[in-house]
């Protein structure tokens, strides 16, 4: 027990460090959780939970090889747990929900939606590290170097993983690519 004492931050130091970490990464983690959950409130709840657990261990913050890597991984895992759980729940109500769906969209919008779902689910299927790296690149416009620093990995790994992510997506979406080309302008307009 005693040999761990030397590693501890003082309480005040740990609190300051923690607050800094929280404010630095909260938004970014929230975006990440949103991308998985499509639910801002739940995403915040999960990120708050992850930080709460980190808070309980804040004296050991400096022992982490990479705090953001830890945070991204935790958020990722918690989100997937949540999704898994809600999927189980959803099974019970699947037919009800199905009946409630209103197919009142235009064909274009429906196709677009389907396409979005394809991309979403393809991204969701990426392995955790690959997905996190892709996320940092895609949403936060971080450079390879910045991603590498943040996650404590090499630039080469980032390069490989982003390449892998896009190759995987391309392979999965290849049959939709013609549709993508067609819809490209529409999507842009819709988003604007």
């Amino acid at each position: 027990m005693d040999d761990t004492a030397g590693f501890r931050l003082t309480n005040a130091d740990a609190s300051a460090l923690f607050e800094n970490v929280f404010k630095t990464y909260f938004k970014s983690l929230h975006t990440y959780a949103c991308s998985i959950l499509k639910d801002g409130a739940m995403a915040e709840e999960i990120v708050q939970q992850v930080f709460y657990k980190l808070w309980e261990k804040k004296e050991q913050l400096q022992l982490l090889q990479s705090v953001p890597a830890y945070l991204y991984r935790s958020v990722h895992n918690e989100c997937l747990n949540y999704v898994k759980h809600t999927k189980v729940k959803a099974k019970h109500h699947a037919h009800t929900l199905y009946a409630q769906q209103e197919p009142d969209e235009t064909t274009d919008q429906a196709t677009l939606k389907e396409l979005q779902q394809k991309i979403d689910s393809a991204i969701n299927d990426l392995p955790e590290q690959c997905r996190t790296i892709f996320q940092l690149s895609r949403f936060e416009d971080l450079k390879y170097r910045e991603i590498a620093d943040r996650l404590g990995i090499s630039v080469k790994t980032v390069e490989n993983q982003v390449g892998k992510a896009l190759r995987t997506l391309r392979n999965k979406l290849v049959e939709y690519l013609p549709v993508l080309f067609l819809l490209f302008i529409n999507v842009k307009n819709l988003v604007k």
Partner: protein
Amino acid sequence: MKRERQISDELLVKYLLGEASETELSDVKGWMGESAENKDRFDSFRLIWEQSRLLAAGSTIDADDAWARFKQRRQQPAAATKQIPLQTPYRWVKIAAALLLLAGGGWLAYFQASYPKPETISGVVKEKPIVAAPGIPKYADSHVNVKNAGVKTQVIAKSDIKKSSDEVSERSLHRVSYMSKKSTKPVKNYYSKALYSTSRTKGFICNSTPCPIEICITQSVKCRHDRSTPISTCNVLEPDQSGKLHYTALNKISRHCKATIDEITITMISTGETIVLNDHSTPSTAQNFFNHITGKKKGEVYAGVFHSDCNNETDNCGLTFDSNYGNLILQ
């Protein structure tokens, strides 16, 4: 064709993301000019990249606001906040069961943690009412024991380095005496060291708490060549309280230390009655329950009543989950 092969997907993506060097830049440009096919390939990446960015739902959250909410959350008491009506007797056992499940949550997290290093795991029960009901635990056999231990009710998940059958079954008997000696002043947990934990939040729902119960999760931690140290983490639930229960499972606390849960003891403060569970508890329901708690069995457990119907070491004791009372849910 030779040049074509030199352009990898990674390089295309680098180019796309503006990460390519000058040389790579001109390589890719040259390659794209070679054929419409090449250009299409690049365009497919570009389209997917742009699509995925367009689809991204950005966060509009304000970090300072979130921090304020976090501070609020942090200040909430660790043990229980909601009021729940007192009702049926025998329900306090549900709390016990809930706590056992909680202990299992941590253990489960331990098993699922992807890091081989020692680590700390914490579990939180929150936002779900936790209630137990009055009643007297009567269940006991060689591994699930009921014992009067004064005025405390405790749930103890005891862990140790090894889980050999003999050791465990012996320990369960030892546990009871340990409880009566130490139940009033559990050692707090100071072992949370490593942060690579796969923490879980478990939802527990059960009914009324008729009397204060103290829940202690005790684990033995062995570091290097030191003797193993028993560590208790305790929570007290007042009558009709429910809410958060915090504990930290000490698995993998550091690369030099190890801890395992091999026993869980439940005591009720008002009567002092104690139940000890381990992985050799013989009624299959008890065993089953314990395994869920320790994470050997996965999935959800729906449990109503934690019956303890005997007070001696015989088989065929009942530890049942009765959906009629149906309020204890491990999620």
